[in-house]
């Protein structure tokens, strides 16, 4: 096997990396990492909600009920609705207004974020812990993706936040290209998709909510890992209340469930992303139900619980990609 080409860059509000070994559909390893990097940067510009001229912002502003959309946009919105359906509405793509009301109006990565607060301080001031619940009106059910017509239909004014499900889906899309190489890993700002022809295990390290220390390292051959947590994107809102970007859909307020971070393993990036978020929102008592392929949780007291990876991630087999 040839050397591993590694390309690191800033994207999606965080640090990204592409690692590829061997020749494949995307050329040699260097060509493959360069190609993937270009695609990720293009996708960031196309789908960020923090730029007025992005396709997502234009969709959210569009007064029509049915709006034409690009093929990738159709795929991303379909993935977001799929995540909502699988989680019973816990992972809800229609909470953009609530997210902005909580203070998350700008990219934390670009501007340094709202006033940072220590997790300890936030947890001390946070309301009583309880599992998050879905919204009773389930607005996400009003979103309809018509791939044949190339349109997205939703009530005008209902804005969509692609959030982490987009990063997971990007990893899955890139995996369809990179799977023909000896090995690859795509790190989309913490959402990791990995695989390839060879059967060598890749170390997948789980970082701590703050400080970046490694809490645990999985040795996995293929699949995906995603981490959801309140550590990095936390701030004090206008009233001084502790806030973060993971909302309880039922209340529209930041969720404090007793968990500060969850890492989920899965065969696809989308699954890993929705599982991590659903596990964190479900709280410590039910998080394990969302981690059938393994993962790790950290509770408010700093207790780390590791769930062993399933055979699907440690035994080579072809992974079906799709929302």
């Amino acid at each position, binding site marked *: 096997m040839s050397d591993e080409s590694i390309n690191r860059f800033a994207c999606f509000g965080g640090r990204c990396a592409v690692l590829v070994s061997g020749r494949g559909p995307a050329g040699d390893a260097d060509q493959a990492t360069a190609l993937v990097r270009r695609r990720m940067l293009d996708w960031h510009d196309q789908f960020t909600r923090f730029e007025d001229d992005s396709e997502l912002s234009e969709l959210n502003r569009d007064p029509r009920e049915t709006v034409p959309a690009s093929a990738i946009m159709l795929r991303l919105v379909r993935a977001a609705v799929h995540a909502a359906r699988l989680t019973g509405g816990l992972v809800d793509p229609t909470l953009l207004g609530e997210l902005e009301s909580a203070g998350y109006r700008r*990219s934390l990565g670009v501007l340094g974020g709202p006033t940072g607060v*220590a997790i300890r301080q936030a947890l001390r001031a946070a309301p009583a812990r309880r599992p998050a619940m879905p919204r009773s009106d389930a607005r996400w059910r009003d979103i309809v993706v018509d791939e044949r017509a190339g349109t997205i239909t939703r009530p005008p004014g209902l804005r969509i936040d692609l959030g982490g499900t987009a990063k997971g889906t990007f990893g899955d899309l890139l995996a369809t290209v990179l799977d023909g190489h000896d090995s690859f890993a795509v790190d989309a700002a913490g959402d990791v998709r990995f695989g390839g022809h060879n059967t060598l295990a890749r170390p997948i390290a789980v970082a701590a909510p703050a400080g970046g220390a490694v809490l645990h390292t999985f040795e996995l051959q293929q699949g995906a890992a995603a981490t959801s947590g309140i550590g990095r994107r936390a701030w004090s809102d206008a009233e001084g209340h502790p806030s973060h970007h993971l909302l309880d859909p039922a209340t529209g307020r930041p969720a404090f469930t007793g968990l*500060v971070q969850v890492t989920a393993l899965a065969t696809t990036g989308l699954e890993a992303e929705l599982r991590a978020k659903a596990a964190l929102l479900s709280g410590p008592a039910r998080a394990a139900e969302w981690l059938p392929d393994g993962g790790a949780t950290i509770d408010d007291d700093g207790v780390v619980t590791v769930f062993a990876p399933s055979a699907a991630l440690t035994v080579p087999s072809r992974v079906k990609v799709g929302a």
Partner: protein
Amino acid sequence: MHEDLSPTPRSRRVAAGEKLAARRRRTRAIRRRVAGMSLATFLAASGAVLIQLVTGHDPALGHSTHTAATAVASRTAQSGSSSSPTTSVARHEDSRSAVTSSSSSRPDSASTGSARSGGRSGSAAAASPSAVTTSAS
């Protein structure tokens, strides 16, 4: 009349020679044991490293992550069984200590770049994929 029982100069030389020879034998035995143990230790350590490399777990490629993981989660098991979900529990003291005020996210020349891992090829160990970190974004 008493016999003179004190050792003669000759018998004293013989005894001293025997004592010296015994000491040399003991010294040789100790040297052999030390050399043998050193060789055995070296072979055992080399064998362990060789096995680790052959199985694709080059410690040089994941040194920092493995060290930290060992320090924090001391009972982790990574066999791929899904039937026993919880494999370890450990306390992470740092998880409540600091948060956010994140770093720059826009592409910039100082924070971007390409690299090649190691420049090694050929052996299974050298081909081990590099570690990747998943973190909350």
